[in-house]
Structures are given as C-alpha cells and as structure tokens.
C-alpha cells in the first residue's frame, strides 16, 4: 500500500513538473507564439496533448508493444507445466484467427477463462502435424509426438495432415 502511494506521489510530482516546464516554455517563447489566439489554442493544445500523452506512456513503464493483445488458452495441466517451466512450446491450429506473431505479447489463460500470466511469442514455425518431432513434442510437455497428436485429435480433431503452429513462448509472471 505504502509503495503504491509513493509511486502515485512520484508520478503526480513528475506530471506537475512537466506542466511547469510547459508553462515556462510558453512564457519563454511568448513572442514566437504570436500566431493568433485560436491558432495558438489549437496548435498549442495539440502539442501539449501529445507531450503529456507521451510522458504518461513513459511513466506507466509499460510500452504499447508489451501490452498483451489476444490470448492463448491452456488446459490446467498445460498451464501448470508452462508456469513450472516444464514446457516452452505450444502447438496450436495454424488457422487460428488472429494468429499470434513473433514478438507479440498474449494473455495466458486457463480453459476456465482465468488469466495466469503474460506470454511473449519468442519464435514460431508452422508444421504439418505429422512433421512435428518428438523433441518439439517434449518441449510442449508431451512424452512423444504421437502423444501430442493424440491430445490434438481429442481437443481439435486434428489429423496428421493438418497444419499447426509451433510457438515457442516465454512466460512472464502471473497476472496480479
């Protein structure tokens, strides 16, 4: 709680400081800004808005690219394996829309809908299911490619000729 108050105070203080700098800038450049009241209101307002927006973004410590877009769902077993570090790969249908791409952050969710962490897609490749190797299956938390195919058949009605996306993931902490 105390830490949250300190963070809030620090951010508010920095925003106030920024406001002071902006006002100082307008005062300092008063001669240059003789472009008419309406123009100044619109242009100055736009610039001030962008500066404050950028500053808020920087203060949040969470750049837009790191915000999860989309989600990947896991069974309880799969999710736990991922959290414990027992799996680093997820094999999913390739025609999933929207398809996650390398570098994308996703919410990791259980089938029940509860998010349990954030995932970064580190690498990805597409395979015909029959081409998925034992090594990849083991990294996905299965004993063999045959076991993975069996699990996929039960869950997504996969056949060996189906296309799958083999995604290498990195999990970052549980969702607060």
């Amino acid at each position, binding site marked *: 709680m105390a830490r949250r108050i300190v963070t809030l105070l620090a951010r508010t203080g920095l925003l106030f400081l920024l406001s002071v700098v902006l006002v100082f800038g307008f005062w300092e450049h008063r001669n240059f800004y003789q472009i008419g009241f309406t123009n100044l209101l619109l242009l100055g307002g736009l610039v001030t808005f962008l500066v404050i927006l950028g500053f808020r973004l920087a203060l949040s410590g969470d750049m837009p690219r790191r915000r999860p877009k989309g989600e990947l769902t896991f069974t309880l077993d799969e999710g736990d394996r991922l959290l414990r570090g027992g799996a680093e790969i997820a094999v999913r249908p390739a025609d999933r829309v929207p398809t996650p791409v390398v570098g994308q952050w996703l919410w990791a969710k259980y089938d029940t809908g509860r998010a349990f962490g954030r995932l970064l897609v580190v690498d990805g*490749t*597409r395979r015909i299911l029959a081409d998925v190797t034992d090594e990849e299956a083991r990294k996905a938390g299965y004993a063999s490619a045959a076991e993975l195919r069996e699990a996929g058949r039960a869950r997504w009605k996969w056949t060996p000729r189906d296309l799958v996306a083999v995604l290498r993931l990195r999990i970052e902490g549980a969702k607060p």
Partner: protein
Amino acid sequence: MIVYSLAVGAGIVVEAWLLALVVLRGRRPWLVATFGALALTLIVNGAAFIGTSEGFLDPAWESAVLWTLVLANPLTAILVLSLIHGETVPRRRPVVFVLLALAPLVVLLTPSADWAVQHAYDANLLGAFLTVCLGIPLAEAAYQRMTSSLFAVDAFWLAFGVVALIIGGPIYALEFQDLGILQSAGSNVAAPVALALFALVLFRHDPFPGTRPSRTPSGAAPHLFDPGRTVVFEETRPKYSLHAAALAAKEGVRVLVLSRAGPDLATADPAPPSVPLIPTRHGAPRVLGTLAEFFARAPGGLAVLPDLDDVALMSGWPSTEEAVLRLRGVCRDTGSRLIVASSRLTAPEKESLHSHRLDWWTLPDPAEEMEAVLAQSFGPGARELLAAFARARGLRREDLTLNHAEPFLQFLERALSELGQSAADAPARQGLRAQTSAAAEALRAFATRTPEDLARGDWPSRHASEADRGILVTAAEYWKGKEMQELFSAASDLGDRESVFEQARHVFVEQLGEAGEGVLRSELSKLGKRPEELRRADVAHLADRAAVDLTAMADVVDVPQEKLRIQRQVESIRRRLEAIAGDES
C-alpha cells in the same frame, strides 16, 4: 551561442557514431552509401557552422554551411525513398535524383543577396527547392503510413525524422532569429535524431546474415523459367522449390535460398547458398531487404523462399503478402527470378496470394509420382518397393524427394542382384531385369522434368488409373510368373540384410556431408564397436550418443542460426537412426 554550438557539436559526435555503425553493420550497400552521404554532409555542415560561429574558421567557410545545407535536403529525400523502395528507387522514383542534379543550379540562380544561409528558407527559388526536398520524403512516408502494412511503423519513424529535421532546422532558425537569441540558420540541431531514426529503419530492413553469391552475372538457365517472373510453387512440402534451386545452382545461376533450415540441401551438389531466416517480428521487411539486396547484387539470379509460412508467423500475413508483391516488382525491374513455396500457408492466405495473379504452379508430391512411375513396371508392388527403400534409409515416405531417385535405383539394382543369385528361371530373370531397366529409365526421365512442365498437370499419377494397373499386373504375372513378387520380397528384406553400418552411414553422410562418415566412425569407436559389429540393437545407443555429442557441438556455436541448423540436423539423424533401429530400439 556557445551552448548552441556545444549542442551541435554533440550532435556531430552522435552522427559520426551512427555513420560508423551503419558502415560497419549495414548489409545493403546502396542504403549504406546514401546514409553515409547524408551523414557526412550533416557532419561537415555542423562542423562548418561551429567553426564559423565560434570563429575557428574563416568566414568564407559560411559558403560551406550553405552548400552542405542545400545538399543535405535532396540527400534526405533520396535516403528516405531508398529506405522505402530499396535498390529500385532509381527506377521507381527517378525524380528524386533530379533534385540532386538541380541543387547547384538552384543555388546559382538564386539572387546573390539571398546567398546567405539566413535567407535559405525565405520565399525565393532556393527556399522553394529546400521545401520541396523535405516535402517529398514527408509525403512519401505519409502515403506509406496510410497504405502499407509492411511500412506502416517504419513510415511513422521516417516521417518523424523528416519532421524533426524541419523543426530543428528552419523552424528553430526562424524562432531563434525572432527571439533574437542567436543565429542558428544553416545548422540543424535535430540532425542526429533524424539520422538515428533513419538508421533504425535501415537496420529493420537489413538482410539476414549469411553467405551470399559473388557479384557476377548469372549463367544461362535452360531449365528455369524466364527472368523477371515470380512463381508460386504450390506443393505440400517445399521439395520442388529446393530442387529447382539446386538445379539452377548447378547450371551456374546465382541462387539464394532463404529458409529456416534446409536439410534437403545437404544432398544437393553443389549446395546453393542458403541464408537462414532468423525469428524476428521484422521478418517480412528483412526478407524483403535480403532478397532485394540479392537481386541488386546478382541480377538475373534466382531466389527461393520455401518458408513463407514462417515469415507470416513472424510479421503477420498482410506484411508478408506485401513483401512478396514488392519482391515481384524488384524481380521485374532487375530481370531476376523468385520462387515462393506456398506450402503450409492456410487456405485464406493462399486465396489472398492467388488473387494477385502471380504465376501459380501446382506441383505433385515426388514420392507419389515416383510410385506412379514405378507402378507402370511393377504394378501395386511399387509402393512396397519405395517403402522398403525408405525403411532402409530411416526415412518417412513423405521425406522422399527427387534427390532419392538415384539412390533408390541403386537399391533396386542390389535387390535385383540378390534375386538373381537365388532365382533359377533365367528367362524370367532376364525379363525382370528388362522391366527394371525400363522403370529406371522412366524414373530418370521423370526426375529431369522441370516444374514448369509438371505444372501443366501431366503427372504420371494422373495417367496410371487403377484399371491400367490391373491389366499391367496381369500381363506381368503372365510372363514373369511369381518373379515380381520375389523382387518385392528381396527389396523388403534387403533393408534388413544390408549392413547396419551402411544404413547409418547413409544417414550421417546425407545430413553432415562427407564428414558424416568420420563422425559415425568416431561414435562407433566410443561404443567400442567396429563397423561390421554394429547391430540393429546398438543403433538406439548410437542415436543417443550421437545426439548428445552433436548437441554439445551445437552448443559451442555462437551463431544462433548455425546452432539452429545443427540442432535440426541432430534431430533428423536421431529420428532416422531410431527408425533404422525399429522395434529393437
């Protein structure tokens, strides 16, 4: 004034650092050259400005400030357009080079009173010229931002850079002049910011590292399609695209294969230069950069992109599709050729790509066609023969490519020899030999057929209807009796009888080249076995040992893409050895 000069001086240091970084790390000579020209101009401009402002240099150097200012603007336009259009900018946007040619003329035509840098952006011919020079890249970046998914983000940074140049140059000069603080005209305090943003975009489009063919013209390629074309190979697995690359390389064409890993290329002789795709979210722009640079380096060459699906997984389909379409333009401009494999693309992606009227060749699976060719001689037993060969090599049926046609014929020849030793009926044996020769001839003829020829749909599998096969088998049985069946059995048993060492040797050599045999012998000595002592039951241990040792070797490799390639080879060796070990593993 000294504070401003210090700011410009600090900017020069940053610019010099960026210049060194781009020159040392950039892999696209055209972009490195244009970036270098702009960076050098801005460095000279900054140095001349500081020198004249602080009195280090003679006032005559003020003309250097003006000239570099005038030169920097068209160079900015050329660099920004080059970052968007790559090496094809002279063809795509030639007007931008006219600006460069106009620069001295415009300065000469400007009234002498306006020669001073203070009046550079006034309402005169020079001011108009400089404004147009910055307006063109800004407009182009804004257009790309709105229309391109591939360049949307980069166009934003390019526009940001140009706007920074406008604010840090003419607008600040005007403001400082109005405020009467200092005279900054001619300098640009935002130049390092703009250069940093341009460098960022340049590196996002930088080619993937790897071996590249020399800058020599490509040889004639009678088996390849016409230059300037982009062809999509529609096949389940990218076999024909890689085969075409190997064939073209053999004919002296400059070839570049851009793929995640090319294990099949290990069997090609000579193996065409291959650049590995490194997983990055900038996959599509880097593919575009890699191949555009290759086409500029080797016009008339052939580039093969067998893993378009992986690019789609890196950057999303819209960017990937746009990269292919832009490459089609580059191909046309440079008279080069591009093969894109549509393997593993989803149905909507294929449909979307197909709508752009690219040349689309639907190709068969070589394994199925090889079986159909053999079926003309051996009937339904052809499947058995291929399966026996694949089993002996530790391959899956779907792994068979045209590269396996010759090894298969050798295998068939050995099976026939084995049969010859036991079969008593000489005329029947003679007939079977003639039949095998006919099959070999047909298979070799099929292996030489070009993808263009096959794309017309004249496939052996389409000719061999079930009815024909029935008649064929009946005829064969009529004059060869049960010899045919004996051949299938001989082939089936050959894998079991063939020395296990020989089978393992095939696997190691196919994956690791000639050095593979040495690796195998070394692994065997660690197991305390001699080649002739190797049994099927030992192959499982061999697979484990080889996997551990070769993985350890991969771990010491620092280059990530090479590490990945070795890991894939290790996995393939392990999988194939386990297949050879069979039930005894």
